[in-house]
């Protein structure tokens, strides 16, 4: 923490699954702080109203955890189609968030699960909504802070998750959609549809209004998402697939 406060430009590295690829392409990326030995941040705890997951918990550990399977099947489903076994064994939940890729599988899922993150620095700890952490493409508001844990409130919900990409396995998403339906209404988010992970507020409003039509969904989606065309997929494809996934989610969750 002291080192990070003196050198906020240093990159925290744990599983190294993203940093290694950057190192290969850029060769130099300034300094790295290796935090992979901090076992005290590897845990999954059930608290009275929350599941608290340490930032350095690997995707494999989350996937295998009975509490996650029981209370957070949406998170388990996303972890099940996350990269490959070898990468799930290294990659961490905190790393997937902090890397802030628009294609990060778990940020969208955690947003619809109303997750908060506990941040630590030399000044102490604070808790912020995950949604307030991202501020741009691969950009977070983390400065001299480290993610310590991800906290997910235990709330009854039905869910939908689907991810699509160029292949079935070891897939970087072209589009994914995560939907949770609570007694108070819908929460919707997705990957690769915006420069960074956000909730789809206009769409949620339409879904919660009780008068839903294809036109309204299309209009809300157009306001909520701004997919770029990239080497992985075109803008039009992403818009169309997001719409189709949403229709599939409605069919499942309204049934």
């Amino acid at each position, binding site marked *: 923490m002291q080192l990070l406060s003196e050198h906020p430009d240093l990159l925290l*590295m744990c*599983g*190294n*699954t993203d940093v*290694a*690829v950057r*190192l*290969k392409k850029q060769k130099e990326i300034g300094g*790295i702080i*290796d935090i*992979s*030995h901090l076992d005290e941040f590897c845990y999954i705890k059930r608290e009275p109203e929350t599941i608290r997951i340490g930032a350095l918990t690997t995707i*494999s550990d989350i996937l295998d955890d009975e509490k996650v399977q029981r209370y957070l099947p949406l998170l388990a489903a996303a972890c099940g189609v996350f*990269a*490959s*076994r*070898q*990468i799930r*064994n*290294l990659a961490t939940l905190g790393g997937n968030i902090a890397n802030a890729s628009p294609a990060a599988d778990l940020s969208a899922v955690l947003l619809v699960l109303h997750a908060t993150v506990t941040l630590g620095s030399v000044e102490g700890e604070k808790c912020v909504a995950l949604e307030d952490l991202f501020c741009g493409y691969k950009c977070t508001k983390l400065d001299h802070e480290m993610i310590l844990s991800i906290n997910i409130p235990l709330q009854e919900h039905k869910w939908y998750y689907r991810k699509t990409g160029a292949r079935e*396995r*070891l897939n970087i998403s072209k589009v994914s959609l995560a939907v949770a339906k609570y007694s108070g209404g819908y929460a919707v988010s997705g990957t690769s549809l915006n420069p960074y992970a956000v909730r789809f507020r206009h769409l949620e409003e339409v879904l919660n209004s009780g008068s839903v039509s294809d036109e309204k969904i299309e209009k809300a989606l157009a306001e909520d998402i701004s997919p770029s065309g990239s080497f992985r997929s075109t803008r039009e494809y992403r818009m169309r697939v997001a719409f189709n996934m949403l229709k599939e989610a409605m069919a499942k969750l309204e049934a």
Partner: protein
Amino acid sequence: MQITCTINQKNYSFESEPQQRVLDILRDHGMLSVKEGCGEGECGACSIYLNGRLVNACLLLAPQMQDAEIVTLEGLQKETETIRRNFVEAGAVQCGFCTPGFVLRAHDYIRHNGSGNITDIKASLDGNVCRCTGYQKIAEAISKSIS
């Protein structure tokens, strides 16, 4: 920096640059089953066990080896004998470059009580790529190693 670890149950202590990849360090120490394919964690040719978990050595840097237990295919000759024989008999090897990674993944899968079902086995091979034979014969070889 000084690195101390075990590789295939032998103690090692050596000097390394912190940005050196574990893949290169292992090959420099004669563990030639650890291959470099893609070099970015997609192909699984550099699969090794790090503290009992199967990972890609190309994604690991030297400091992550500190105090670790590393096992490569060289250290599992006896444990993988049946798997390797079945790979040969099923014709699951063509150029052979990806084979050490597949054999280790098969070992990992069987160790964790994976089923003999071909569809499940193919799904389990999500982190390993073969560009010659395809996956059917590899999956059959693994299935035979379970039954």
